[in-house]
């Protein structure tokens, strides 16, 4: 019995060392143990269909995954998609854009401290005014802002405060007035040799009165309907009047297309935002053009997109 004692102490000692080493390695190879985990929203996009002179109520839950309490300040701003259509957004003061719905939204509370590992419910009301001129989509963002690294004012020196905010985007559509339409323009085919790819591009111009998230596919088929190429376009996000570029490509190095005449069919889904929100499917636009491909895969002729 006595001979076992040193062995037991030794085992316990090694276990402790392994646990400490594991903790050290976990800290060294992930930054997570030093990370500031910021509060997050249970829903970051709120899409509402409302009739004039009516209102909707809702709730957003903010959760704090951090072991520290965090003070939050809430406020509204306007937003719009930054030109280009990649989904980047520009935020400006509330009520300054033509499609702002910030003044229709009220919420409570506007300031609070969310406890460590706790959550806070924020109620909102959106009341559409009685205005016959309202049509299409209107937008705002409710920001949840928190100061993360506050620099203490010093006599001399230079420092930067760090503020973090997460936003709940409001998309409000006035019932019975929606036009979700787009024009597909500036269709081009481009062949690049290194690497060997065929690029298919077209602009989506939002000709409606509501935001559009567009995406889709293209097919290259012969007269018998045999598919020679198929690929997906990127997603383009636009506000009314904006344009964004759809772009897709086909690896002609691995899958060359023989010389001949083909049809290229573009299938553009204008309702990806609705699908994402689980609110149905939007209109799908199908366009096609006749193309001619040469002996070396070069584009000889591009017909008109119809």
């Amino acid at each position: 019995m006595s001979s076992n004692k040193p062995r037991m102490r030794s085992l316990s000692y090694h276990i402790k060392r392994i646990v400490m080493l594991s903790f050290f390695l976990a800290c060294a190879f992930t930054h997570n143990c030093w990370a500031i985990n910021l509060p997050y929203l249970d829903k970051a996009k709120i899409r509402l269909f409302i009739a004039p002179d009516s209102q909707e109520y809702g709730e957003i839950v903010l959760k704090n995954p951090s072991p520290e309490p965090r003070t939050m300040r809430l406020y509204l701003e306007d937003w719009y998609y930054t030109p280009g259509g990649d989904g980047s957004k520009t935020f400006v003061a509330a009520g300054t854009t033509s499609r702002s719905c910030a003044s229709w939204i009220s919420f409570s509370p506007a300031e609070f401290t969310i406890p460590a590992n706790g959550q806070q419910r924020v109620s909102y009301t959106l009341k559409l005014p009685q205005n016959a001129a309202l049509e299409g989509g209107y937008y705002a963002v409710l920001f949840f802002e928190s100061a993360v690294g506050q620099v203490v004012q010093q006599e001399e020196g230079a420092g930067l405060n760090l503020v973090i905010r997460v936003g709940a985007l409001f998309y409000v559509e006035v019932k019975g007035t929606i036009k979700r339409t787009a024009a597909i323009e500036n269709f081009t085919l481009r062949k690049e040799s290194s690497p060997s790819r065929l690029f298919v591009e077209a602009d989506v111009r939002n000709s409606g009165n509501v935001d559009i998230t567009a995406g889709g596919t293209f097919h290259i088929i012969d007269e018998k309907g045999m598919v020679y190429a198929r690929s997906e376009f990127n997603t383009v996000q636009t506000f009314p009047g904006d344009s964004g570029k759809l772009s897709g490509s086909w690896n002609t190095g691995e899958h060359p297309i023989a010389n001949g005449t083909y049809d290229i069919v573009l299938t553009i889904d204008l309702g990806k935002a609705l699908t994402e929100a689980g609110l149905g499917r939007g209109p799908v636009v199908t366009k096609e053009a006749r193309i001619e491909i040469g002996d070396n895969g070069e584009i000889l002729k591009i017909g008109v997109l119809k």
Partner: protein
Amino acid sequence: MNTKFNKILIVVIAAAAILSAASACFALATAGVNVKASVPALAQSLALVINSVDPTTGAFTTATEVNFGTLTFDSVFQIFRASKFFAIDAVVTDNSGAVWTLTHTVSAFQKDATSNIGGNVNVSFVQLLSGVETLLDKKSFTNSNNKAISKTLLGNGSLRIYYGVATGLGDDDEVTPITVLASAGSYLGTITLTLTP
């Protein structure tokens, strides 16, 4: 006692061997098993790490604020230097497939209405992927306002943003060092990082 214990041990090992063999036989006789797993949706969230970086050694030290402290005057080059620069790592968690955007906005970096060092600080936006940094953009602090970084741009990487007082070497074209023309005092600015879907 030992002999009896050894016998029990042998019986247990033999039983285990028989059961293992039996389970292997059953496996051979089985046509197929459905495998099912569901990955839960995660709420979109942001985690940050602020580091101060030693310009000599390149060593990162966790910090709680972006504070350059009191700058030191380099009498040879007649410029003010900082003893450190800063790196903010921003990691977004989101498995919804949505294209989120991190937007970087800044206020003036100033002492008062006439003294501003926003044009004397470099801001570099870097993709960090498997420990490898790829520069996405480099601007002056002032011109880094409204810089948007999307999930598409970062791919599977995360965002690292460096903030450094100009040194006269390797600065962005828009950035110049702080000279004796800058009036003494405390300069303060604000960085706002915004996460939206």
